[in-house]
């Protein structure tokens, strides 16, 4: 079944609380994609506990790998290389995937490819659209809010990033103050859809030429509003808080993305990361880019969250460019995207 011109990459991802393995053909076709989520285990703590995440990764890794091969109906002979998230992420969690990948690649004598987690999120888009350069990527997740311009495959120019909280982090904190169940981001998105953005919260535009973000002022303002209302014994609509907060976040993200797309004259805009699953953000971006002539790509929901197919897809590019890793590959929790 295996035409030798095709390249099959096994991807492994363990940077946070999903243990994932996938096999991807030629960098743009998912052959299998298995994700074991630990969300139920971390729920009781109200967030991801790093030590517990690491423990679960060890328990799940080979099971998830086996499932990825079974779903693909493939053996090791079909696999050309092993790609793994080397960072950024939780160091203990990353270490499990990195050491597993090294052992697999060594045992089966395959090339090893370290992959940047955010490169993975960007490449999650390649399963539905071929990239057109220059390309602008908006990455929004619990740990990241970044604008990146790509001039070619595997080339990343960071033009803007958050100066304090990541967008997803702000979502999580507001959700906690509103006493919403974990994980809070999707809950706020849901409530926002039911409410009116009747309150005005700050939007941090920063310097006029900056593509950086800041969400800590917004976060404090929302939290103060909730606390003040509670202190005065006033009831406050969670729906309108959520809608007003979300509208501020989405407004800033959409406007900065739009400006960057104009000034860098990009031929494509892609959205990546867990917050790309946010319905409010998706709608606002779609409206903004609708008649612009710049195609906008947002991955399907299941590819917005962490998975290993995206790591294999990014690894395919590294592999083609001869970017391989040695047996001394390590987890790097603050790996820069270059």
């Amino acid at each position: 079944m295996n035409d030798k011109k095709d390249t099959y990459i096994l991807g492994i991802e363990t940077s946070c609380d999903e243990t994932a393995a996938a096999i991807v053909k030629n960098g743009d076709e998912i052959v299998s994609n298995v994700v074991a989520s630990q969300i139920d285990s971390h729920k009781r703590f109200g967030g991801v506990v790093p030590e517990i995440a690491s423990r679960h990764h060890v328990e799940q890794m080979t099971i998830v790998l086996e499932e990825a091969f079974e779903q693909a109906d493939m053996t090791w002979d079909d696999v050309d290389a092993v790609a793994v998230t080397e960072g950024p992420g939780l160091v203990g969690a990353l270490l499990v995937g990195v050491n597993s990948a090294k052992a697999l690649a060594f045992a089966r004598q395959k090339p090893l490819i370290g992959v940047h987690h955010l490169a993975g999120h960007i490449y999650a888009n390649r399963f539905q659209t071929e990239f057109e350069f220059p390309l602008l990527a908006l990455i929004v997740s619990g740990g990241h809010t970044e604008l990146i311009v790509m001039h070619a495959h595997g080339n990343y120019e960071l033009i803007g990033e958050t100066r304090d909280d990541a967008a997803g982090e702000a979502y999580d904190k507001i959700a906690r103050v509103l006493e919403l169940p974990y994980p809070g981001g999707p809950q706020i998105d849901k409530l926002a859809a039911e409410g009116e953005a009747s309150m005005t919260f700050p939007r941090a535009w920063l310097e006029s030429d900056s593509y950086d973000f800041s969400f800590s002022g917004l976060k404090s303002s929302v939290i103060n509003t909730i606390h003040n209302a509670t202190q005065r014994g006033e009831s406050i609509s969670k729906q309108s808080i959520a809608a007003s907060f979300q509208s501020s976040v989405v407004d800033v993200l959409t406007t900065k993305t739009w400006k960057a797309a104009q000034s860098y004259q990009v031929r494509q805009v892609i959205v990546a990361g867990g917050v790309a699953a946010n319905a409010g953000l998706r709608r606002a971006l779609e409206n903004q880019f609708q008649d612009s002539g710049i195609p906008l790509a947002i991955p399907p929901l299941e590819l917005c969250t962490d998975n290993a197919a995206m790591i294999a897809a990014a690894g395919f590019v590294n592999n083609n460019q001869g970017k391989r890793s040695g047996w001394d590959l390590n987890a790097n929790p603050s790996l820069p995207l270059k």
Partner: protein
Amino acid sequence: MNILAMDTSTQTMGVAVLNDNIPLGELSTTIKKNHSVRLMPAIDHVMREVNMAPAELDKIVSAKGPGSYTGVRIGLMTAKSMAWSLSIPITGVSSLEGLALQGRFYHSYICPFFDARRGLVYTGLYRWHHDTLELVMAERNILMHDWLDELAALGHDILFLSPDMSLHKEYIQRRLAHKAVIPADSSPAINPVHLAWAGQKKEADNTHTLTPNYLRLAEAEAKWLQKQRDDLNG
């Protein structure tokens, strides 16, 4: 039968390749460097030196803890991944048992331990019986103070083995006096060849379900369980 054994559960990193009982190559270091960076190059190095390809391996043996959480995971995840991808059996051996094997000619009780901070140790009690090392008091995470009470009650000679001996030596000697046997020359480490020998005698584990023996809950989980108990008791 070609065996690869590995251990990264303490600051010592050990890798050994054996053919049946014969050690062909062995590498052991005790330095303050990252196991994650060094384990796979060490395995690669030893296997090259003994001219063995990964496909020629018949079994993997790995220390499975207790010890450093991260260290144990690095070794065991590497071992599990190799065994699974090569479809060969794997056996996990207790890191304490591995250490106790340093006392394999000793006639009485053997107490291996690792320091676990705040007065705690990971330990257990072993004894050589005919040709096997038997666990006579279960492995546990316990205050050294309480553990020595239990050992004193035995009234027998006990050989203490630990890479962390300097932290506990005086106290052990004060509590057990001449019943405590402490090797003068060493702070012994796990020898990967011993691990391989021990692993060879044991049945293979299920590759998927073999997990580290931490001997301790993650802190967040312990606190959470305590809170459940407190809530239950009003």
